[in-house]
């Protein structure tokens, strides 16, 4: 039996051809749904991408040590004795020569002028994350690699994250970036797929310490043998009375950075809901119009034995089909943004539109179709047969 004669075939053709018959109005619905779905998918994918960075940054075998009560590394200050105590804490892995695998780091947010633009223009500056590090950083943060060039060896040299170009424009090895008035040269590019570090500017620890000359640090990142050892190390450090610190595994630490994505989840849902509501209205308008032109037709179908719900369902099918088309187009349009890099303040990320986002977009489209078609379908199911047959 050919598919043409399957029982679903004629209802689908009926729905499609009716939608085509009033294609102007159908197009309006398709367009509304497409826009709503596109915006929703892009915004939720942005939220997911941001959350993804927070989730994929960090290693569960690493422990981040901050000063007690510090919420983040930027507001944390560890003095030299505390740093030493952390580095030599039991449970920290050692390298071949017996030195602890500990990365002493200093974090700061600075306004960086975009190279090539007038440095005085406040709008031509960007807040960027700076990280003062030692070569131990490469040992402790396993996901990081030098994609091009080399690690900074002296003051005035920078290792920039791969996505820094999103904020500062086209910069690469050899470019000059001014940090607090002092020129720095880019000597390398850092890659760390999907991690915060790709938005950062790395320099030597002494360089960022600069004039103050003190031996303070923001954080010490310690490498333990594995996630369990890391958890034990966290426990030990938190309870220690000599070292007055707070410790977390690195993955836990970055997980709390997810609040940036919160804003997008919120906005995305809100704007998506409003646009979706607009699309529902457009769809309902279209379906009511088509319903009122087919009253006699629907009466005929009832006369021929089609139950009231079936007649309503036919309208719902049409609404669903049109919305599904709009949803598919919307998801397709959203994919045009896939892979493109954006930045929110100091954080740069590459937008990743995943199958879950696409599925959510399609589900949204179907929901719009159901909502828009519901009331007209219900009206259709309530038609009185004799009156409908007499309708002009």
């Amino acid at each position, binding site marked *: 039996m050919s598919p043409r004669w399957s029982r679903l075939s004629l209802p689908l053709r009926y729905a499609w051809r009716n939608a085509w018959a009033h294609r102007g109005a159908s197009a309006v619905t398709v367009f509304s749904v497409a826009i709503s779905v596109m915006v929703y998918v892009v915004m939720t994918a942005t939220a997911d991408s941001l959350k993804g960075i927070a989730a994929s940054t960090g290693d569960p075998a690493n422990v981040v040590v901050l000063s007690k009560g510090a919420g983040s590394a930027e507001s944390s200050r560890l003095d030299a004795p505390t740093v030493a105590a952390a580095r030599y804490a039991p449970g920290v892995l050692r390298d071949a020569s017996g030195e602890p695998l500990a990365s002493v780091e200093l974090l700061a947010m600075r306004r960086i002028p975009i190279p090539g633009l007038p440095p005085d223009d406040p709008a031509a500056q960007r807040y960027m994350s700076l990280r003062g590090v030692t070569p131990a950083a490469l040992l402790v943060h396993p996901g990081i690699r030098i994609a091009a060039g080399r690690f900074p060896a002296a003051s005035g040299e920078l290792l920039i994250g791969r996505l820094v170009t999103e904020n500062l424009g086209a910069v690469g090895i050899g470019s000059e970036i001014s940090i607090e008035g002092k020129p720095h040269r880019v000597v390398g590019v850092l890659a760390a797929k999907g991690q915060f570090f790709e938005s950062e500017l790395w320099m030597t620890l002494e360089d960022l310490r600069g004039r103050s000359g003190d031996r303070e640090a923001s954080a010490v990142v310690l490498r333990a043998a594995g996630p369990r050892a890391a958890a034990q190390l966290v426990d030990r450090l938190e309870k220690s009375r000599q070292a007055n610190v707070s410790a977390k595994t690195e993955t836990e630490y970055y997980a709390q950075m997810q609040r940036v994505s919160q804003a997008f989840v919120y906005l995305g849902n809100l704007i998506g809901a409003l646009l979706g509501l607009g699309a529902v209205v457009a769809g309902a*308008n279209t379906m009511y119009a088509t319903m009122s*032109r087919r009253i006699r037709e629907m009466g005929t179908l009832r006369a021929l034995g089609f139950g009231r719900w079936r007649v309503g369902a036919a309208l719902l099918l049409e609404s669903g089909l049109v919305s599904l088309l709009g949803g598919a187009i919307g998801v397709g349009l959203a994919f045009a943004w896939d892979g493109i890099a954006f930045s*929110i303040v100091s954080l740069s990320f590459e937008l990743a539109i995943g199958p879950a986002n696409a599925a959510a977009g399609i589900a949204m489209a179907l929901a719009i179709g159901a909502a828009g078609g519901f009331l007209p379908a219900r009206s259709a199911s309530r038609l009185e047969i004799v009156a409908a047959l007499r309708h002009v």
Partner: protein
Amino acid sequence: MKLFSEIARQAPLVARQLRRSPRRTALTFLGLVIAFFLFTALESLLYTMSTVVAGASRDALLFTRAADPDYWRAQLPASYAEAIEELPGVVAASPVRFFFGTGRTEGSFAVAMGIEPSAHLKLGIPDGVTGSELRALFVERDAALVGERLLEDNGWKVGDRVTIGGRQRKPDLTFTIRGDIARGDRLDRVAVVRLDYLQEVLGGGGRVTFIQVRAREAGIAPAVADAIDRRFANYTMPTQTVTEKAHIAPFIASLSDARDGLRLVGYLALGVTLLVVANSVAVGVRERTREIGTLRAMGYGRARVVSLVLCEALAVAVVGGTFGALAAYALFATGRVEIPGAGFAYRSDVSVVVRAALLSIPLGLVAGAQPAWSAVRMTISDALRYTE
């Protein structure tokens, strides 16, 4: 005013047409309200972002701080303030020390700002603070004026005696709340205490975080900033003076991707609504093709029919659009619109609403154009014979 009398005459016909299919009119109206609400809301977000940068009075407000990247810790001598006030063009200079601590719940932040009341009030009085509340700050050593949002976040009330917990081995700060600072003021998230009390609690030898300076007017602010920095250039603790605008501008600028996106979404919503209105009017026109033919047969000229259809589109668009814009304005006027994680409340302005509502006029005209054209395109006899 022929135009008005013309509109007045058309009005009953337009009203009747809109009532003819109340469901369609209602749905179209609803779509307009939603779209204009969204558009106005987004434009309000953008407005807030740009006024934060372009705050006119703030151009005259300067921040003098240590010329050290880490100025929040490296503190300036409070005594600089006197020297600054002697410079030409300076109206007032007030030393300020910030204290970051924890609020009532673990992990929450609370910020205290220590000021010299007499010096600081020359810079301006925070919103919502009455004379008697201010007086408390002058009279009581450990009195505080606390911003409404900080009060809310911690569940504090005026009259409470509360503590901000010290972090990083700093002591706790305890004070009595004597007044509240209204939501929407720049200080609505801060507890304002006396600088001398704060210094006593924290120690630190007369150092402050920065010195807030008011220049006589915005135009001379850059010159004043230069003058201040030159004054202290050779001291062990040189200064760097910036305007608040320069301080925030990079932040706002780096949001530009997001801002463009929001603006685009707003216009897309309007674009789609234009199509919805056009379609709705077109359906109405098609339904009464014969009736329009009859009107034309009776002598209604093409122009009059066109204006009839346009009026219909305009009526729905303007009423619905204005409604939606006003609804958004009402929402923002409560001052409670925040985006979690973004940290400031969004406001709106009459200019934003008016601009949005006015957009409904061209929207209505463009939406009505095609249906109006198709209403007069047919010959009268064809129109009279028309069946679906």
